[in-house]
């Protein structure tokens, strides 16, 4: 008797809850659908297709049909070993990353510390003006740096000469300095990093500084033992974004030195090599190998960063996600 009543009572309740849940799930799925479709159509399937093309000799001039894809096994991967551009261009990209990533942390952090200082008059004006170059389109920024870093008439070299540097670098015409000139261009757009670091600095509880001061800690000690650990999650985020972008970087180099990466290949970044092989020479099969390398290197670098970086990052809330 009681068992029957229980069934009569619970069965409709259960089915009503699950009907509600089901309806909720259907709605939820409907809302996620744009992204799920986009993820499959524009990200996951293209990546798999890139891997597929890397094993064929497909060129863009051929008609897109099944017969146009001839399997060549690992031929494209073998070509990598004899490609005279692949290794030097990876070197250019790595050099850019190794200089740009530390610089992309130190300079924005210095600016963030400055605009966070309680001694600064009109800090909001400073924040706005330091952010301004970040909204300038990359193409415009490249034109501007091409002018301001001109060896003779550029204002940077005029300033350096006025300060007594007799032979300032020839920047974009000197293979030694051209890459670094693009590091400078990239660091010019420090606004996002500055704003994020600034928010990090402002979230550090002031009691920590007060307690440390009472214990006799000077400004330098406070900076390295309180500020840096407390903002380490933000630093980690900035470094991660910096790494991801560094391995994709090539557009300003294309505008300055063309598809040959002039001067003398100093601006032949690895993604430029990819762009030239794919969309200038139409060697889609081989370019797919280069694309796969960019993908794997980026994944490996961020993976390593997460593996080692997470241990160095201090999460105040204890949340490691």
């Amino acid at each position: 008797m009681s068992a029957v009543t229980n069934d009569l009572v619970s069965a409709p309740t259960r089915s009503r809850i699950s009907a509600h849940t089901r309806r909720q799930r259907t709605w939820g799925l409907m809302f996620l659908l744009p992204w799920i479709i986009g993820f499959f159509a524009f990200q996951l399937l293209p990546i798999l297709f890139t891997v597929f093309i890397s094993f064929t000799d497909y060129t863009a001039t051929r008609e897109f049909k099944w017969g146009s894809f001839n399997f060549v096994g690992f031929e494209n991967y073998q070509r990598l070993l004899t490609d005279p551009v692949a290794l030097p261009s990876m070197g250019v990209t790595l050099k850019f990353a190794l200089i740009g990533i530390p610089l992309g942390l130190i300079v924005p952090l210095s600016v963030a510390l400055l605009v966070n200082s309680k001694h600064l008059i009109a800090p909001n004006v400073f924040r706005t003006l330091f952010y301004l170059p970040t909204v300038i389109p990359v193409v415009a920024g490249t034109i501007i740096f091409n002018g301001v870093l001109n060896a003779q008439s550029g204002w940077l070299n005029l300033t350096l000469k006025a300060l007594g540097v007799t032979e300032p670098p020839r920047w974009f015409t000197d293979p030694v300095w051209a890459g670094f000139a693009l590091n400078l261009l990239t660091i010019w757009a420090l606004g996002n990093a500055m704003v994020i670091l600034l928010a990090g600095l402002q979230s550090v509880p002031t009691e920590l500084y007060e307690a440390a001061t009472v214990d006799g800690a000077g400004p330098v000690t406070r900076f390295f033992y309180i500020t840096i650990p407390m903002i380490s999650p933000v630093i980690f985020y900035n470094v991660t974004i910096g790494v991801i972008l560094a391995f994709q970087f090539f557009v300003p180099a294309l505008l300055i030195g063309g598809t040959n990466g002039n001067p003398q290949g100093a601006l032949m970044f690895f993604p430029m090599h990819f762009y030239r092989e794919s969309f200038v020479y139409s060697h889609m099969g081989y370019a797919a190998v280069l694309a796969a390398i960019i993908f794997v290197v980026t994944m490996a670098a961020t993976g390593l960063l997460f593996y080692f970086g997470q241990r160095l990052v201090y999460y105040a809330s204890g949340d490691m996600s």
Partner: protein
Amino acid sequence: MATTTVSRGVAARPSSKRSSRIGRDIVSKLGVTGLGLLMLAVFLLPLAYVLSTAFKLDTQVTTPGAPLYPAAPATYTYEGQEYPLYDVPTEDGGTRRLAVVNPYRETSDVVDPAQPELGVFNIQGRWRTWEAVYSFSPEWENFSTAWRQVRFLRLFRNSLLLAGISTIGTLIACILVAYGFTRFQLPGRNILFIILISTIVLPPQATIIPLYIFFSKLGWAGTWLPLLVPGFFANAYDVFLLRQYFASIPRELDEAAMIDGANPLRILISIIIPQALPAITAVTIFHFFFVWNQYFEPLVYLLGKDWLYPISVGIGAYVTTFQNYPGRSAATAVMAMALPAIMFFLAQRQFMQGVVVTGVEK
């Protein structure tokens, strides 16, 4: 122990301590602000350069010793003729400003603008060693030439349309997806969200070849469709920003509406969206700028179709052909950055807040 010592010290010499603290305060204020101005000067030097160069004639840019501001050689009109002005060194070590009428090798015929009644007279000295006098004179010629040659209105219209349409699509898609991630219990929702966030790592090079082949097959190469359509399918950055904001809106509001019989779409439109306007504004600006600045994708899909070029590709192509015209190049750069800069000044608060949400709360 330490605290008592300090407070006793303060009590012993109250007035001198306070005045010296105010003094130290002023010194550190001036010091820090001075340092800030110095850093800002270095930082904005390129902007000063481009604004100045855009208003200069190319002859001035390449003339050594010409002033840094836009200027023209100053002249003096004597009896209906214009003569260039020079600062001529005098015997007492000073200079005398004279207009050169007839320059010879060792001497010159000059007029003194201060005393024109003296007429033309001859003085000793090589005019080539004298310093030319310049006066401030901005030239608009670079802008008018570049405006015409890059067909700026067409580029501007294309960029505006591309960025506008793409932003509308992104807003619709990202709001729906962010809503789905915040308000609905789905199996595997957290894994899906982790996948979404990890697509930030994905380099565009890893997908562009298949996408190019695919869009060409559809007949979309050489049109705007490959640039516009993916915008309608949401992206990680903007979904993340909106999700963080949606999650902070109290659920009681949507529950009340649900009891009143509103369906989820209705709740999104009438409750969530009005509450999330700051985040939506931030996404609008970010995505608009993102499309405005895009170079690689339009270059790949629109190659050769110059009537479809956005500003970035249009001026990029122009500048590579006109490398030797610094004035015109600078003018195109100024024209390309004008709209983003104005928008930034108008909406800087939403802008910086949006950056903070994506960067800090991760």
